């Protein structure tokens, strides 16, 4: 009797373990099976590099959205990485334990705030600020970059903080003993040693920024045209899906799913990069 029970439970556990494999397989299957035919019908080059998105006129070029996603992600990295990295250095090497007890929950809370709330905050605070400073509607690439920069902070901070903390103390002590100041020891001896962990943090940040939807949709302006300046509105791959999937039909709907496929491929590449960097770091 117990033997049967042990056997069945063993199988139950095995099946459960296979669930995540099944999930990834299903996601790939459904995404590609629904998206790839549309890409084929529109034409790969027309779809990826086409500059006009006019579903009414059967024109499905998502190049403006790809560029939009890349721009806002790059901007978010430019804003978020220096602040996040320096903040992580502060938390790991500068801040007294008492202050750390406040900083750590603060960063966790920053990570826990729903993206829709971030989007709302961007809409009612950052957008008017940009509008008053630069004119225009205030919904543009710059606004999106600032908000996304804030949103990736907790990812960057927590991953790089643990990378910095993982560096053996002897590195720091050695630099200090050679007469360097505290700051120089941290930046010249400890940070280079934490390089791969920091790189992993940046890659994770890129993944978060490129996949962010609800916040971007509120503040980026959502124009499906090629942006010509920092103050132009953009539409990202993610917002394109949410904006139009509700009413799209036929080829239009399939083109939106194909947009998701392109995003998915981007994410897979980023994931792959992440695991390569992590493996390198583990060596």
């Amino acid at each position: 009797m117990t033997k049967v029970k042990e056997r069945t439970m063993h199988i139950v556990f095995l099946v459960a373990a296979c669930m995540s494999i099944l999930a990834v397989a299903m996601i790939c299957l459904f995404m590609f099976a629904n998206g790839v035919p549309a890409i084929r019908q529109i034409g790969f080059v027309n779809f990826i590099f086409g500059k006009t998105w006019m579903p009414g006129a059967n024109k499905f070029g998502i190049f403006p959205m790809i560029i939009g996603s890349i721009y806002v992600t790059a901007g978010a990295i430019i804003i978020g990485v220096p602040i996040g990295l320096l903040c992580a250095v502060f938390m790991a090497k500068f801040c007294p334990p008492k202050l750390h007890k406040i900083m750590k929950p603060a960063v966790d809370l920053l990570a826990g705030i729903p993206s829709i709330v971030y989007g709302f905050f961007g809409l009612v605070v950052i957008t008017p600020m940009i509008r008053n400073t630069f004119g225009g509607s205030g919904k543009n690439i710059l606004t999106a970059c600032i908000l996304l920069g804030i949103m990736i902070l907790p990812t960057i901070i927590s991953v790089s903080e643990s990378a910095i903390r993982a560096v053996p103390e002897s590195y720091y002590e050695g630099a200090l003993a050679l007469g360097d100041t505290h700051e120089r020891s941290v930046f010249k001896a400890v940070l280079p040693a934490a390089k791969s962990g920091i790189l992993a943090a940046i890659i994770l940040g890129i993944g978060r920024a490129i996949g962010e939807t609800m916040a971007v949709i509120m503040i980026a302006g959502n124009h499906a045209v090629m942006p010509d300046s920092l103050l132009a509105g953009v539409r990202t791959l993610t917002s394109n899906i949410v904006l139009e999937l509700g009413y799209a039909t036929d080829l239009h709907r399939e083109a939106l799913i194909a947009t998701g496929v392109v995003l998915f491929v981007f994410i897979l590449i980023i994931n792959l990069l992440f695991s390569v960097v992590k493996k390198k770091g583990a060596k």
Partner: protein
Amino acid sequence: MSEQAVAAKADMEAIRPINVVTWKDKLAAYKKRPLSMFLLMAVTVSAVITVGVLGALVIYILANGIMNLSPELFAWKYTTENVSMLPAIINTFLMTALSLLIAVPIGICSAIYLVEYAKRGNKLVSIVRITTETLSGIPSIVYGLFGYLMFVIAFGWGLSFFGGALTLSIMVLPTIMRTTEEALLSVPDSYREGSFGLGAGRLRTIFKVVLPSAVPGILSGVILAIGRIVGETAALIFTSGTTAEIPKSLFDSGCTLAVHMYKLLSEGLYTKQAYATAVVLLVMVVIINAASGKLAKKLQAK
């Protein structure tokens, strides 16, 4: 006092212990090393910005939102006049419970397999690792699309609460798996050996000895998952829909609070109500974070 004693006292005062660094010394040292001073300022400013942004966000939303909280917003039934969020709040709890009901058993069982059953160098384990990592990197909109394609279209359920819960449970599965795995790994092997030594089988050892001591770790994963579910929007819009009512069955549409807030914002007429909704969401997240913080402390104390 003799002259000698006075001189000795003056000498004593002139000698400063060399192992004490005053603020003045520090300032002087930094003046000599501008790079160090700059770096110190840079890290401090960054930390201030990070905390400042959080403070600004929380204070701004609380300050503007609390006065917009009114009893009509918590009416039992949603109408376009009162824009009640109570159904959405209840839906949020239901959605969380349902998603966890699906994800937690699967997550725990698969972690058990990975830690307790799989042999070292098992190929399956490395595949599972890769897939969970992939799952945790997929953005919520892709989950939303997948849920839409699978549950809404292929299964023909239409916009359904159950479809949304299934989508979310796949989304939080990696979180639960990873934390459970870590919790199981941190249970000392001597527990297992002791249990085996007393004649217990593998299954009994797992359920009576290993799992109970891993509970706090598992709980922290569950709390993380709750946080993600409560804040999730993009994965739910096209799976569970935006109907602001408590679903009568699992296959009805029903929106959670975050989706409700998105709807309010996209209609553009309800900014006040959106503030109030943001307050409620924020309070939920703060409570969830506080719970996970407390749990983490308990884990560390062990």
